[in-house]
């Protein structure tokens, strides 16, 4: 693993930022300050961070209803993210989108999506656009184990394969799709087995090992940039929180959650690795957590002190050429 120290520490900070962001979001949602509903990615930081650590700012990412982590890992501004969740006019989408529809086109985020698997057809289009414009960008789509059974997944993967588009199909298999266990909705052991149906390389990875994710992604990104076409990566991970905040979770045993949380936390695992490799100390780690906390506090302060949109703002932004 040739990743330098600076990059490793950056990745660690990213994971910590996602974790704190999500924890904060859960709290403010519970307190009634975040309207609508939100889906948190706690426990899945290894996937978002590992994948996005391999991307350039001009690479594209299409994300999901559970997309805060992808946004942050791709470099989004926390202030505008928090503000969007709060429905404030200073948010990324001026309050029009909220958690489930957040985007930052300036860093290549083509948007979260309230439609499960909605990102896959779009990412095929982004990949095609890269090919037509002859750049060496790559386009990455995240989707869930549940999403993997939707038809557009099939169409997009096939199309990317036959045209050798520079696309990464990253399925975050967090074991659950809302109340449905992964193994109920699909009869495969590894979701990456689907890749063979398109003659596309498929990898199953321990998604809570951020370095393993990074290693596999680097390989897939390199292939894509060199015109070798798409890959599928399955990051096996676990959703620690409910499907949405407030989920009664009658469908699963809390013991299952606790096992993952205690024995397989991607942040703790990475921290241990960094400490063992003498890249990080417990003290330095604390500094990072504190710095992130301060940054998040500033973002919160920004969001809370920002105004709501004016009601009539709802009539803006529909058409360019109105």
């Amino acid at each position, binding site marked *: 693993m040739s990743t330098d120290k600076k990059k490793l520490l950056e990745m660690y900070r990213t994971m910590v930022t996602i974790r704190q962001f999500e924890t904060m979001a859960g709290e403010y949602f519970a307190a009634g300050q975040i309207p*609508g509903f939100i889906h948190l990615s706690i426990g899945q930081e290894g996937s978002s961070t590992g994948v996005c650590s391999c991307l350039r700012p001009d690479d594209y990412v299409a994300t999901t209803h559970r997309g805060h982590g992808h946004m942050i890992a791709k470099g989004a501004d926390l202030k505008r993210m928090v503000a969007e969740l709060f429905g404030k006019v200073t948010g990324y989408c001026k309050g029009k989108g909220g958690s489930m*529809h957040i985007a930052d086109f300036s860093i290549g985020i083509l948007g979260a999506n309230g*439609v499960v698997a909605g990102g896959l057809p779009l990412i095929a289009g982004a990949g095609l656009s890269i090919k037509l414009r002859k750049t060496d960008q790559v386009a990455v789509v995240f989707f869930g184990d549940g999403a993997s059974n*939707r038809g557009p997944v099939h169409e997009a993967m096939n199309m990317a394969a036959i045209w050798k588009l520079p696309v990464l199909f990253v399925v975050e298999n967090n074991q659950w799709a809302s109340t*449905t266990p992964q193994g109920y909705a699909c009869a495969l052991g590894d979701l990456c087995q689907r890749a063979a149906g398109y003659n596309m390389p498929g990898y199953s990875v321990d998604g809570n090992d951020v370095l393993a994710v990074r290693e596999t992604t680097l390989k897939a990104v390199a292939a894509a940039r060199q015109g070798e076409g798409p890959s599928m990566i399955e990051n096996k991970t676990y959703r620690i929180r409910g499907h949405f905040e407030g989920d009664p979770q009658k469908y699963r045993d809390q013991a299952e959650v606790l096992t993952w949380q205690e024995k397989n936390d991607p942040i703790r695992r990475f921290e241990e690795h960094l400490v063992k490799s003498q890249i990080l100390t417990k003290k330095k780690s604390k500094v990072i957590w504190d710095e992130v906390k301060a940054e998040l506090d500033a973002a919160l302060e920004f969001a809370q002190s920002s105004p*709501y949109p004016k009601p009539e703002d709802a009539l803006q932004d529909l058409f360019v050429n109105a």
Partner: protein
Amino acid sequence: MSDRIMSASAALAEALHEEMARDETIFILGEDLTAHAGIFGQFKGIPEKFPGRILDTPISEAAIAGCGVGSALTGMRPIVDFHFSDFVTCGMDEFCNQAAKIRYMFGGQVKLPMVVWCPDGAGLRAAAQHSQSLEAWFVHTPGLKVVVPSEPADVKGLMKASIRDDDPVMFFQHKRLFRREGHVPADPEFIIPLGRAAVKRPGKDVSLLTYGSGFFLCMDAALELAKEGIDAEVVDLRSLKPLDMETVAASVKKTFRAVIVHEACVTGGFGAELAARIQAELFDHLDAPVLRVGAKDVPIPFSPPMEDFVLPKPADVIAAVKTVCYR
């Protein structure tokens, strides 16, 4: 047997309990139904009472819709839970090119008794992709029936009628109204035939023609209007296809004025169809143009001040009524 007070959710569940007990070809299918009795708890008691007759599916809307169609063609009476009405887009071919056309294309060889249950509507800060009211698309699709209940009794009576109907029915129930309570008759044969509107508040000055969540806006508006001496009649259409044009006509012939109210955005909504028919069929009875009240023509925005601004409110109904009453 006296009426009972129950929520719209409970009324739905009761209809299903009764019908499923009566006819064992009825079953329910959709995403995430058994763990929490539907994602809104709308199927309370059914997973326990009818195991194997309420099925969790993968996230595969085209196949879910297709399972409804294919099972209906082969002897079952499926109720397809479509999770959020917004996702009808993902089963649109199965609904509009298959379910709607099969009986007709094949010369009446077969029946297709399927109910597609679609929770719809806004107001939950769920933003553009989880808040739509899409009934008008299906009204414009020959071969489908379209039902949009408002009060709990309507939910029960119309669901029972929809299940017993031998044709495909798109059934839209508003998410924000699940907990809203009302009287529901206990008679297990209480059925509201499709195509029968209800005059829920008689009045003489203006006809408020509405359905679904619009009904409650109209009732609130009618109360306010009464204070100002305007006596509004509220007609709950309940089913849009078939449409009870007779009841609409009787009301308009009495009041000479009509305002149509629905939550869907105005342009191209069901109000367009109804307004077009009223002015065509009752031209000489109208003392004022038929006005429409609905959401503004944008996707539903997330942030509360904007969402509230976009959705129709009783004040909008009142303003429209005053316009047609020239006051």
